[in-house]
Structure formats: structure tokens, C-alpha cells
């Protein structure tokens, strides 16, 4: 049991940190600009592909730096020439623009790198176990991923609290309409934040692409899970996004261990459910363990219905 808990915690932590790397940028963009960026996962995918391409030329370590930088530039360009153009048509148009963008990025990736997964590998240096607990390895690469995530979080924290631009961003997070009154170059800040958010997603792609699988479907497969983090964490709150990421990581990993279904519940309550037949009989068969990966969506829906502020949000989405 302890074994299960410890590993669930470790797995949950790692998954949560990855989620946070992805969603922190999205939270920033969404809170400040009100744009629900559907192409965010596509930037994650681009990060992985860029890293793969760069690592075939100059190796993994430079890719770790160069790929996010490239994504920063791409993100800034997208904001400047795409989003800003459609901004005047309202949030729906902005959102749909990002939907279309996600579409195009996927096609472009297919066109450039083909439809099969490229062989993007973990660097040999990190391809070894870090420590072993109860005969299960915790690999160095996973340790490295944790390290990168923590470093990124620390850097983000420092930028937001110690720099002038960070303070403006913080102010804009909670009061987006007020900042323009301060006379700051708001479009410039938006461009910066959008680029920064994309760079963070790209970094997640660099370290996640080889740990998982890099292929044209990876953005689509990641799906709307990042939105779940933003919603559950709450608008305008990076801490909320952090907590939500870890929470979702933990929920998903722990749910897998719970092999209970509705019919078990009825049995426990001493009821013999006679209505288990018919069209809904499968409902009673499904165990919590099977539902792990879809629980986040349930949480998101319930959160939006009952607590639209999210866990730590400063205002409603």
C-alpha cells in the first residue's frame, strides 16, 4: 500500500509539473487577454519537433534552449499579426483564430516532418535509473524533467515578482482593464506574454516529446486538458494553476488504483441493484480506475457550474 501511495505521489507530481509547464502560459494569456488559446498544445508539439530537429543537428542540450526561444518568436509573431488583427472582432473570433491555427500547425508539421513519429530520444546521459524503490526505477530523465519544471517555476516567479514588467503583468492578471490606464505599452506586454507562454509550452514539448511520443497527433491527443487546469486553478492565479496541476496529476494517478464501480457501491450499501440490466448496465461495470483520464473533464464541468472562480481565481472566467 505504501508502495502504491509513494509511487502514485511521485507519478502524480511529475505529471502535475508537466501540466503546470503547459498551463502556466495559458493561464497568463487567458487571464490577461481573455483569449482561450486552442493552439497552446500545438506550440507544445512544435517545441518537441523543433527540439528533435535541432538535436539531430547540434544535440539535445542546445535544443533545450533554442527551441523555446524559437517558440517565443513564433508566439510573438502570431500575437502581433494574427490575434491583434482579429481582436477587434471580439473574443469569439480570437478563440476561433487559435482553433484554425492549431489546425494549420498540425498540417504544417505533417508536411515538414511526415506523418510518422520521428525518433526523438532521451539523451544517453540521462537514460539511466536515478534510484530504485521496491524494485521500481525512477529514471534520471524523470528527475531531470522535475528539475526543469521547478527551475521554470522559480524563474517565472522571479520574473513576476522582481521585475518591472513582471509587476505590470501581475497587475494585468487581476485587472486587465486597469493596466492600460497606467499608460504602459499594453499591446507590447501582450506580445511578450503570448510569446512567453508559447515558449513555456515549447519547453514542455522539448522535455515531454521524447519522454512520451513526438508525432503529429500529440497536440490533439493532449486535448483540452490544459483548459481544465486553467479553469480549476482559477482565472488570474498562477498559484491556482500550480495547485490544480498537481491536484489533477494526483487525482489521475490515484484513481487508477481504485477498482470500484457503481455496483460495488450498491453492494456495499446492502442493496441488490435489480435495475442493472438494459441499456445502462455498463454504467455499473465501469470502475473508477478506468475513468482516471476523463475525470478532469468532469471536474472542469462541475467546477464551471458550481464554482466558476476556480480554486484560487480572483474573478470569474
Amino acid at each position, binding site marked *: 500500500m505504501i508502495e502504491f501511495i509513494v509511487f502514485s505521489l511521485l507519478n502524480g507530481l511529475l*505529471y502535475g509539473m508537466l501540466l503546470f509547464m503547459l498551463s502556466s502560459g495559458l493561464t497568463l494569456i487567458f487571464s490577461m487577454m481573455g483569449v482561450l488559446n486552442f493552439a497552446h498544445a500545438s506550440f507544445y508539439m512544435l517545441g518537441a519537433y523543433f527540439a528533435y530537429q535541432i538535436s539531430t543537428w547540434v544535440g539535445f542540450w542546445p535544443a533545450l534552449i533554442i527551441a523555446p526561444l524559437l517558440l517565443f518568436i513564433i508566439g510573438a509573431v502570431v500575437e502581433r499579426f494574427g490575434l491583434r488583427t482579429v481582436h477587434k472582432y471580439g473574443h469569439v473570433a480570437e478563440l476561433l483564430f487559435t482553433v484554425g491555427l492549431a489546425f494549420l500547425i498540425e498540417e504544417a508539421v505533417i508536411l515538414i516532418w511526415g506523418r510518422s513519429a520521428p525518433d526523438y530520444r532521451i539523451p544517453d546521459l540521462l*537514460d539511466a535509473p536515478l534510484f530504485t524503490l521496491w*524494485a521500481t*526505477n525512477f529514471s534520471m530523465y524523470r528527475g531531470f524533467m522535475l528539475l526543469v519544471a521547478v527551475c521554470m517555476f522559480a524563474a517565472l516567479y522571479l520574473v513576476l515578482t522582481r521585475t518591472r514588467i513582471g509587476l505590470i503583468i501581475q497587475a494585468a492578471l487581476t485587472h486587465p482593464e486597469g493596466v492600460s490606464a497606467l499608460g504602459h505599452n499594453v499591446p507590447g506586454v501582450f506580445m511578450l506574454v503570448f510569446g512567453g507562454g508559447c515558449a513555456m509550452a515549447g519547453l514542455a514539448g522539448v522535455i515531454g516529446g521524447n519522454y512520451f511520443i513526438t508525432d503529429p497527433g500529440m497536440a490533439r491527443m493532449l486535448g483540452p486538458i490544459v483548459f481544465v487546469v486553467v479553469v480549476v486553478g482559477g482565472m488570474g492565479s498562477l498559484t491556482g494553476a500550480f495547485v490544480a496541476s498537481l491536484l489533477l496529476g494526483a487525482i*489521475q494517478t490515484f484513481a487508477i*488504483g481504485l477498482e470500484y464501480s457503481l455496483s460495488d457501491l450498491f453492494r456495499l450499501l446492502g442493496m441488490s441493484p435489480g435495475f442493472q440490466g438494459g441499456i445502462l448496465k455498463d454504467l455499473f461495470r465501469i470502475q473508477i480506475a*478506468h475513468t482516471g483520464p476523463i475525470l478532469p473533464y468532469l471536474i472542469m464541468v462541475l467546477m464551471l457550474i458550481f464554482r466558476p472562480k476556480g480554486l484560487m481565481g480572483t474573478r470569474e472566467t
Partner: protein
Amino acid sequence: MKNKQLCVILAGIAMLLFAAGPVTAADTIKIAYIDPLTGPFGNVGDAGQKHFQYMADLINGNGGVLGGKKFEIVPFDNKISAKESLVQLKNAIDQGIRFVTQGNGSSVAGALIEAVNKHNKRNPKDPVLYFNYAAVTPAFTEEKCSFWHFRFDAHVAIKMDAISEHIKTRPEVKKVYLIHQDYIFGHSCSATIQDMLKAKRPDIEIVGDTFHPLGKVKDFSPYISKIQASGAQVVVTGNWGQDMQLLVKAAKEAGLTAEFYTFYGGGLGSPSGVGAAGENRVKQVTEWHNNLWNEQNKPADKDFYLGFQKQYAVGNNERLEFYYGRIRTMMEMVAKAFDKAGNANPKDVAYALEGMEHDTYYGKVIMRADDHQLYQPMFISTMVKAGSDKVPFDVEKTGLGWRTDMKVDTETTMRPTVCEMKRP
């Protein structure tokens, strides 16, 4: 004046756009290939098309069928959607095509079987014949069996039977873990292997029987922890695509030593997705793999294999390899059936295919008339370091290749069927 000229040009362009279909010769037998050519599964469908094209070229090069008629593979993109497949089937029928093949997705295959049955019932004089090369739901040759459907891939129960045969020969295996995708395919895999193991190895304990949502899991580590904790020596999974690749990768990360018996360990794109993690860990059950020629000493098959690779050499990133041994079997048998029938009438071709026996490099195969299921030798193989004398070829440039553990003969794979074939 200027406008008029422009109109003429525009009209010309529009006409060209619609007229630019494939130029067809009169003496061809067209086979509609309905599979995904765009979208997430586009690469799989694309590879399959190349297999068919390669086979058609070979057969055509040897004089074709029916005294000189050539095969023509006409691709139709179904985007792996059942709905689009049905529209494309109509499209194919409109173009006068009466032979259809498809493989990806049981949803599509089920829809096509239904649609072909209905079409043939409503147009008894103008039937359509459907060759299934990869959809493995047993029902297609059991309860839902149809005279107009022939399956050239081994279905779930046959594959699981082969796996259980291999486990039977390994007395050291005591604990088996099952993990499957949570949908009908996964459930039927799980139920089948449990029954078989119970019958063949009652001493084996099933230490886990887990289902996870299809294509939704990104990090399989929690599942691996569970497998690790159960002490399983062997994992059996019907997972395909990313669900299989991520599972194996996570197992390697965690240092799990259990072996994985898979259906699709060698599936297109899987070896490169799994990468080094698959070494000595992944087993597959297939009718063919690219080192069989060496093990069975059939060098002619090597030339056939390399010929495909040469014809479809892609850029530096990728290498497309021959994978579907059964497509070869299928095309050879179909060609034989045409000659046997003596005409290109789908009904006669179907009758000719029924009960047909055929010699492949690796043994006799038979298209059983009772259920239209092809029975063929099955091979259990393991992913190991390639480049040696025993394992000459790797797959998808991973440096890893397949080494046969066991061959299951055609007779052993034969199973009773509940199919009640209705013939016209």
C-alpha cells in the same frame, strides 16, 4: 472583351479541375482501397496503399489476371470515419468498382460489411465484394459473417490463442497481468485470453485485469506501478498505437522486467515510437515479420521485402518497410481466385475464394468456406538487437528486429465458428 476571355479561361480551369481524375485503361480490374489517407491515421492508410500498389505492380508485371487484365488500386480517403467510408463506397460503386478492400478500424469494417450486404441485397445482379485485411473483431466471421466479406487477418481469438500457446510452453510464467483499452475490442481481448489461459494453464494466476480509456492516457507510469506491485512476469495487451507505445516506454522508465505480449508491437510506426524501450520486452503475434526469410531460409522473400523498401524509399527521416505479410497473401489469393472463376464477377470470385488453399513461404494457408476467415501460421516473436546473423534486419531504423520464438501451425489456429453462411 477582357471579361469574356477571362470567363473562358476560368471555365477551362474548372473543367480541368474536375476532369483530372485518374486516366483509366479499359482492361483493368479496379480494387477500391478505402482507408484513411489524411488525418491522424493517414500514415497507416498511406503505407497500406503502398503495399497494395506494390503487390498490384508485381502481379501486373507477371501478366496480370484473366489473361492479361491488370489490377488497379484506386485509393479513397475515408479519414477513418465510418460515415465517410460509406460515401466513398458509393463513390467507388459509381465508378464501376466492385471490389473493395479496407483494414483500419472495426467501426469502418462493420459499416462496410453492413453496407455491402445491403447493397447486394438491393442490387442482387450487381454485387460488391469486400476484402478485409486488418479489422480483427471476431464477430465479422462469427455472428455477423457474410458471404461478401473475406478476412485475411487473424482475428482476436486466433491471435490470443497463439499467445496462450506460447505461454503454455513457458512453465516459469505464473503471474499474468492484462491491460487493455476500455472498449469492445479490449474487453474481448481480455475475456478471450482469460478463458484460454484457464483452459491451458490453470496454474497461472491473473494478477490484474485493467482497462483504461482509449487514447486518453498520456502517462502510463501509474499503471506500470500497479503492474510492478502485482509481481506479474508477463503482460498481455491488445493495445495499439500510442496506448501500446507509451505503455512500453513507461515500463522501461520504471525498470519493469515483465514481458509484453502485444498484437501491434510491430505495427506501422510502433517500433520507432517504442524505440529502445522495446528491446527484449515486446513480443508480437503476427503472420509475418522481416526476419522470417532468414529463420526459414527463404531468400526469395528477402528480395521481395527489400524490393518494396527500394521502390518506396522515402527521405532520410523515414524508412517505409513491408509490414502486412497478409496483403501479399491476399493479393496472390485474389489473383488466383480471378483466374479460377474465369471472370471478374464478384460472386464467382467469392465462390472461387471459398475454401481456397494457398502456399506461402511459411506454410499453407486456407480461406475457410464456413466463415470466410483465412487461417494461416502465426509467429510469436520478440524485439531484439538486430544486425546479427540470426536477426539480420531491424525495423524502422531502430536497430531492433524481430526474432521468432514460436510458430503456431495453421491447423492449430483453426477454431470452431458459429457462422451460418448464407450463400446467394
